[in-house]
């Protein structure tokens, strides 16, 4: 019953997020067309203060750029929300990572930690639990961000291994002696359980640069339990 309750909560959260991001995109669409129309009308008007025209056009360009940035965030959040629609589906690991990191970049920026992606193009699509995989990635990245010092980098690389996909999440930089997850033992247990549920092999080693290297081997054909 506990598990069912958790699943229902995830569905509930996913629906709310999907609805919110959909509405947000609608608002952005209206702002986009209104700003575009303002630009059209301004272009057509022949008389007036040239300086004022330039000022307005600059504002319109800024509105357009911000709409575009907000739209990308809303689109990624919408995709993450819809990934909770069904437990198993075909997905591209690079897409999962890209949409998730776009939303996590701000957390990194607050600690001056940057992300470096080196993703292999044309990796095979996997049939797995995308929402659970995103949870595992989030937890690993969040844990590194908690522990790394300012100026560090988290490197991501993906590659194909047969039909499966291997994802490396590696830290580059020293760890903060005071930092760390609240209860790392519990987190390891949760991650191990999640990885087993999603048919993901999860291992960790110390890389040549003395950073932590998390290796996820994601099964391409997870069977429904």
């Amino acid at each position, binding site marked *: 019953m506990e598990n069912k309750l958790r699943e229902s909560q995830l569905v509930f959260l996913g629906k709310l997020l999907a609805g919110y991001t959909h509405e947000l*995109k*609608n608002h952005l*669409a*209206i702002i986009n*067309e*209104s700003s575009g129309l303002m630009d059209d009308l301004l272009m057509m008007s022949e008389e007036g203060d040239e300086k004022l025209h330039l000022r307005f056009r600059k504002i319109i360009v800024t509105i357009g750029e911000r*709409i575009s940035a907000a739209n990308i965030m809303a*689109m990624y959040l*919408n995709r993450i929300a819809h990934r909770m629609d069904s437990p198993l589906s075909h997905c591209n690991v690079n897409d999962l990572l890209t949409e998730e990191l776009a939303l996590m970049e701000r957390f990194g920026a607050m600690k001056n930690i940057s992300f470096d992606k080196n993703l292999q193009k044309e990796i095979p699509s996997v049939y797995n639990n995308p929402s659970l995989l995103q949870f595992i990635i989030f937890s690993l990245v969040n844990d590194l961000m908690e522990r790394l010092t300012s100026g560090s980098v988290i490197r991501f690389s993906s590659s194909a291994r047969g039909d499966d996909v291997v994802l490396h999440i590696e830290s580059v930089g020293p760890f903060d002696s005071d930092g760390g997850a609240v209860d790392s033992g519990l987190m390891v247990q949760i991650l191990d359980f999640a990885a087993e549920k999603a048919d993901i092999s999860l291992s960790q080693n110390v890389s040549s640069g003395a950073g932590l290297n998390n290796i996820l081997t994601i099964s391409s054909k997870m069977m429904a339990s």
Partner: protein
Amino acid sequence: MDKIHVLIIDDEVEFAEALAERLELRGYLPKTADSGRGGLEAVGVALPDVILLDLKMPDMSGFDVLVEVKKKYPTVEVIMLTGHGASSSGIKSMERGAFDFIMKPVDLGELMEKIKQAYRKRLANSM
């Protein structure tokens, strides 16, 4: 190219009207309807060349309007407008007869290109 008659069916009135005005400034002949049923009525009154159809509306889903339009007026081309982050709903629409889909917020240049392509298809199918 002749002036293209475009019907925008979207319950977001401000979006539809601003888009219609921008298309009009570029030589199109747009009209708007703010509901699925209103859109179907408008199609019956004056047949458009291309319909821009929102996927999610309160009275009727865009899918249902699409199916109805293609059943009665198979040569009218429909471009779906979707606020979904993923392209799956757009692909589903194309399986049900839509010419193409475009995500909101709309890139006007991309939209006009799709409208022209849809119009060319309509002309070819009407001959």
